[in-house]
């Protein structure tokens, strides 16, 4: 969950740096070292700040009458500062310089729009006419001719990146409501021009971009309160005339009726953006606020009201936001954690979800949705081939839809393939590297498999299904038909695994499993491979549990406790003999029943189903539960040994539930009579035993108290007998 931390003031602003559009600062740029920023105001001054200290480290001004027209940047390689004043005059100075009049000066032949400083690439100068030069080239001949690329378009925004070893500059221009995007690769001296897809009734207000895997992602904030994403490939060598860039909706800045009129925004990580703007609910006065949005789940993560107003500018460096608030420059730290659905809705519990490998994107789940989106995408794909190739090259981060698309497509294609080819393809698909929507993909795969099973009754890929269920974190809702088919095929092993692994099996299915398990013959089960780890420790093999001591010896060993164990062992042994000695079911069946006992259920929903259980099966099941109960009670800690063995509470709950459901039948059935009377006797003995223990408790406590009371004497002669 993203969160905004405490804010603090970096500095106050002069009269020009106030609130409102047109006010504010010229820019804020990163300083030469971490934790430093360079602030350029709209007048004559640039200031270097150490953020954590909240103090200025240096301040430089140009002469009266001059005005800084381009934000001061720092050359990270030489630790020099570069500024342009009066559009054409370039100044370069170092930290120790004080007077800007006396530093290096070069007058250029054209107006500078901005200088971008890149960590490893040196500064790049963008002229207002669209010409681009690196600073080194420019300084060799300051008066060199600068071409005009964009004729009468106006640059709205620019940004520079390093792609491999070469600087890349992107800028957007506007002319008569049309927006253009230029991408300039400096080393290759190539310039691409794109036209931004038109949007009716709204126009872009603000841009930001990032580069990843050779693709520039340009995000645009439009005046219709939406954020759009545009992908621009770098690897395009075809010299086409003015391609049109299509955009896709990334985020709608509205939250329960109120709309955020964004003015500027920054990208925080792959799922989060921060937007500065004014939030206007219908009928209410709008208020300015800083917000963080999750683009994956389209949710507003956090917001902070800024009652004193802002200049509409927002910067973000080193996990800190910078913006003007009232008459000061405010810094807010933020935290942004990787997003999951749970986090997005505020329900993340770290401890409980360690083994959920990835979230499920619900949008891509349904089969029909998939088809629809596939078809619509297909038509788009037909329109421009180049985009399809582009998409398949994209990195894992940005390809949520296309991936399922390819899965969907694949599954469609495979619909009529031969069985072996079908399975091979699916296996290949599964062996692919982890994708963000892998769960969803697996769901689709299983659905496809099950559909095939349904259409072809002879087809049942037992091992393949087993492998998928065992190796992936699935849930019932992800593949609802799987268990139904397994029930139909009586694949008890798969059912056992499903019962152990799925957290959300409906009671109806649990009951169906129970019924199948009880009805299936022991002879049949013996031939089947079933996981016996839950029963192996207590069935038929006498478990030697003499060393149950788990307490730690502390400060001289605890004699009393040891003797207690010894005593109770003796009493227990005499107590329990005749009943529940032998397991009424074989180990395979017991293991299957244990899986049922372990599954989650709700009594209200299970009870009606249990009423339908045939009488003989109900008695058998009760007999097994009785056996477990006796086994449990044998141990001093009333737990059965082994992995996934049922707990005493589960046993008791199921026993009560079964008796509730089958009460009338049990009373009438002669077979059940003896069992019930034994059970009754056993429970009665237990109740008595515990009530006796309760009675002694008071006496023991009294004894202990007496023991303490006689202590205070400082001297006594006592008799001690050692035997």
């Amino acid at each position: 969950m993203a969160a905004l931390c405490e804010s603090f003031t970096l500095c106050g602003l002069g009269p020009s740096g106030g609130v409102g559009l047109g006010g504010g600062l010229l820019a804020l740029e990163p300083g030469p070292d971490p934790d430093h920023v360079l602030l350029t105001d709209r007048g004559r001054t640039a200031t270097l700040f150490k953020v954590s200290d909240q103090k200025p480290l240096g301040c430089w001004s140009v002469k009266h009458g001059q005005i800084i027209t381009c934000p001061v940047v720092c050359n990270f390689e030489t630790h020099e500062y570069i500024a342009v004043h009066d559009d054409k005059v370039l100044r370069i100075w170092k930290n120790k310089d004080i007077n800007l009049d006396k530093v290096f000066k070069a007058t250029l032949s054209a107006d500078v729009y901005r200088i971008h400083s890149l960590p490893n690439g040196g500064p790049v100068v963008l002229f207002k006419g669209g010409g681009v030069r690196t600073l080194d080239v420019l300084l060799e001949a300051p008066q060199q001719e600068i071409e005009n690329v964009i004729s009468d378009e106006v640059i709205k925004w620019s940004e520079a990146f390093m792609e491999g070893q070469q600087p890349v500059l992107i800028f957007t221009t506007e002319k008569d409501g049309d927006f253009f995007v230029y991408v300039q690769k400096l080393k290759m001296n190539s310039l691409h021009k794109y036209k931004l897809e038109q949007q009716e009734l709204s126009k872009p207000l603000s841009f930001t971009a990032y580069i990843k895997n050779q693709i520039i992602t340009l995000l645009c904030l439009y005046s219709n309160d939406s954020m759009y994403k545009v992908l621009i490939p770098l690897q395009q060598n075809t010299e086409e005339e003015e391609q049109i860039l299509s955009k896709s909706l990334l985020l709608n800045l509205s939250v329960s009726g109120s709309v955020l009129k964004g003015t500027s925004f920054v990208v925080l990580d792959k799922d989060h953006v921060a937007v500065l703007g004014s939030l206007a609910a219908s009928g209410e006065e709008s208020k300015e606020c800083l917000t963080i949005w999750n683009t994956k789940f389209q949710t507003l993560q956090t917001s902070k009201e800024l009652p004193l107003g802002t200049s509409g500018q927002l910067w973000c460096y080193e996990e800190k936001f910078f913006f003007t608030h009232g008459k000061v420059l405010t810094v807010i730290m933020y935290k942004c954690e990787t997003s999951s659905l749970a986090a997005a809705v505020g329900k993340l519990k770290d401890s409980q979800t360690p083994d959920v490998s990835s979230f499920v994107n619900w949008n891509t789940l349904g089969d029909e949705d998939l088809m629809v989106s596939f078809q619509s995408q297909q038509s788009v794909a037909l329109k421009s081939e180049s985009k399809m190739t582009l998409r398949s090259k994209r990195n894992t981060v940005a390809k949520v839809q296309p991936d399922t698309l390819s899965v969907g497509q694949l599954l469609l294609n495979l619909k009529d393939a031969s069985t072996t080819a079908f399975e091979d393809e699916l296996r290949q698909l599964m062996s692919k590297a982890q994708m963000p929507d892998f769960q969803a993909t697996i769901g689709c795969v299983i659905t496809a498999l099950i559909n095939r099973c349904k259409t072809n009754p002879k087809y049942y890929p037992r091992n393949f299904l087993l492998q998928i269920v065992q190796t992936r974190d699935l849930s019932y809702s992800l593949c609802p038909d799987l268990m139904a088919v397994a029930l139909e095929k009586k694949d008890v092993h798969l059912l056992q695994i499903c019962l152990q692994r799925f957290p959300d099996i409906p009671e109806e299915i649990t009951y169906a499993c129970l019924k199948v398990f009880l009805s299936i013959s022991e002879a049949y089960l013996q031939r089947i491979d079933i996981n016996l780890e839950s029963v192996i420790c207590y069935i038929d093999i006498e478990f030697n549990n003499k060393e149950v001591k788990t307490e730690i010896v502390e400060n001289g060993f605890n004699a009393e406790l040891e003797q207690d164990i010894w005593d109770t062992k003796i009493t227990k042994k005499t107590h329990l003999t005749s009943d529940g000695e032998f397991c009424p079911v074989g180990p395979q069946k017991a293991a299957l029943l244990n899986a049922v006992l372990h599954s989650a259920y709700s009594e209200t929903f299970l009870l009606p189903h249990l009423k339908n259980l045939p009488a003989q099966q109900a008695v058998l099941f009760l007999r097994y539960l009785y056996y477990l109960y006796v086994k449990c009670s044998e141990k001093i800690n009333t737990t059965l040994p082994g992995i996934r063995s049922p707990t005493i509470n589960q046993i008791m709950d199921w026993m009560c539930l079964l008796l509730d459901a089958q009460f009338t039948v049990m009373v009438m059935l002669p077979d059940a009579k003896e069992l019930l009377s034994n059970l009754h006797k056993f429970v009665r003995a237990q109740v008595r035993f515990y009530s006796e223990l309760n009675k002694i408790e008071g006496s023991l406590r009294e004894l202990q108290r007496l023991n303490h009371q006689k202590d205070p004497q400082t001297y006594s002669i006592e008799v001690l007998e050692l035997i």
Partner: protein
Amino acid sequence: MGEFEVHRVRFFGLVPAGVRCLACQPRGGRLALARTDGAVEVYNFAANYFQEKVIPGHETRSVEALCWAAGDRLFGAGLSGDITEYDLALLCAARSVDGCGGPIWSMAANSSGTLLAIGCEDGSVKLFQVVPGGIQFERNLDRRKGRILCLSWHPSDTHIAAGSIDFLRVFDVCSGQTVQRIMVNYHVLKVRRECIVWSIAFLSNGTIVTSDSFGRVQFWDWQRGTLMESHTVSTSAVLSLAVSEEEDSIVVGTSTGATYQFQLLPVKMGSLEKRWVRTKPFQHHTHDVRAVAHSSTALISGGLDAQLVIRPLMEKVQKKGYDAALRKFTFPHRRLVSCARKARLLLFQFSQHLELWRLGSTDETGKDGEVLPLCRMPEHLVQLKSKGPEHIYCSCVSPCGSWIAYSTASRFHLYRVQYEGDGVSIKKVPKVPKLLLPAYQLQFSSDSGSLFVASARGSVHVLQLLEPGGCKHLHTFRPPSGSSEAVYLLASSADGHWLAAVGGDWAIHIYDMKCFKVGAGAGGMTPTSLPPWGAGCQWVQRIGPLPVSHCCIPRAGLGMGLWEEMGGGHRWPRLLPSACCPPALQHHSTVPMYNCAVTALAIHPITNNLVIAYSDQQLFEFSIPEKQYTAWSRMVQNCGLHRVWLERDSPITHITFNPKNPSHILLHDTYMFCVLDKSLPLPDNSALLMNQSTLKQLPETARQRQLHAFKICKKFQPLLYADLLDENCLVMVERPIMDIKTQLPLPIQQKKFGT
């Protein structure tokens, strides 16, 4: 087996001093501990946390900080302003250097152990270089106002973090300048209270961890000076803090007696991002936890309630055993009580005085568990106050009760006690021989005729006690191969023939005392020409029927001269030819080395078998005359002792015997008293070790099959001393923890639910 009349003594008013600081030896298996009275103790992890060395305290030498440097050298510093190096072989403060900055609050050694940094009252941090034979002032770091309460070196030794009141500072060691100053009370609004940084740790990634008087544990980025994390663990101060060597775990101690562990854990399973999480709270102490340490397998804390608690980290412990149990040490692993068996007196040793008590008596007899009516109450006879600031190293009362001896670091005192009816008169023996002091252990011979003084370099002095109140130095035993360590345990045989001594190197040397009674010559014999060997009395007595008082060998090869006592003060000189002289070797034998500390030893009065208890709870029996382990001892080693016996957590501190029943060995530790009957079979692991209560319920006939060698009684706890007064009369000295607690200042009041 039988019934004992037990004198249950609870009037030994010992209040152990609180634990002030702890220091784990880096990459070593030792823990140094300093108490509020200035005593310094060393515990050995490998020897089951045995309290290996004790340097008694000193009134003017408070220790505020301890640290190990240059491997195994131990330094302490305190409010006296001195830095003291401790000599761990001689068990004393070796040398002191004035820090010249007023009282010293903190000290830390750099990772290589070559430099010591001290934090002083005047706000200065000074560096001292550790050089062979001492330390040498190197330089001052940037001095500002405010006492330096805690210090920590960055593991790379380039920076030092120092905590003070309201702020902490970071020094660059090279330049000596303050490179960062962080206010710690920045976020506490309105209330203007001082925030004391009690403890500080500098992690290798540049994080500084502080604990302060507001109950917070905070993590700072020192370069930016920003607070990264803050955990409020307590409403009262967090006094101490220690980091594990891997820097993935921190233990803190608070003034409410609680300790907490912090662990650096991944935010999610498998995630690379890690965060400090408060994981385990413990409440083992009732008072301030002034010191904590973090060994590789355990959290160690020491409090003003005098307890040292060692809480093992179960995830770091491989198997269930000695290491896996929680240890609490409140009492020293030495005896502070000595008993005059014949006179039924008890001598209690306090830090600066001794108390002599006479036991009460009864005429009645009774059955098991009965308390007998007293016909005479116990009586406090004498209180002996030690003069001067030094604390007492050791003390002893002779079996007849007429001699009391004790030693401090620089002085040895011997007193003659006379009992006239109900009155007691005590007289100091004026001229005691000049010995190499301090004495680490004192032991009177069973006939009260001589005193054995354990001394430095493995030596044992033998003093002869003379009536009516004098003594003289007879001889000094030294191990044949030499030793640098002090002797800390002594045992003499009842017949006066053998003496066993254990030094800090854990070697047990046995000396033959019948071979040294070559006294200083009287009359015409020259005492200066005594060779290092001599004739034994017994041997001489075989020559003639008369007792021999003095003998001497005038010149090698000439034989031996001696005086025969004729009675009535007359003596008869005799000269024996050299051929008749016995082979006079003082050193008899050495018990085979065993790789663990000896916690107690005693020589059987009849068989002259030496019984040895080691800190790993093993028991050995060594026959002195035969110079080998006895058959029983070999059998014990073959069968192995009972698992529960080996898992006990406190060492055997005293062994004694029942002369009427030679097969019995009586031993005790803090939590049990045991009679070991060698004639019975050893219990195997399936048998119940503590079977006394079971046996009592069985009929006489059925008991025989259940009997085994260990007869253990846990009725008396915590047991400081147990001894056999006569055949069926025992004395047990207990010190109930509750009695100590009532002597301590009130702990911080904590609101408990429902009160």
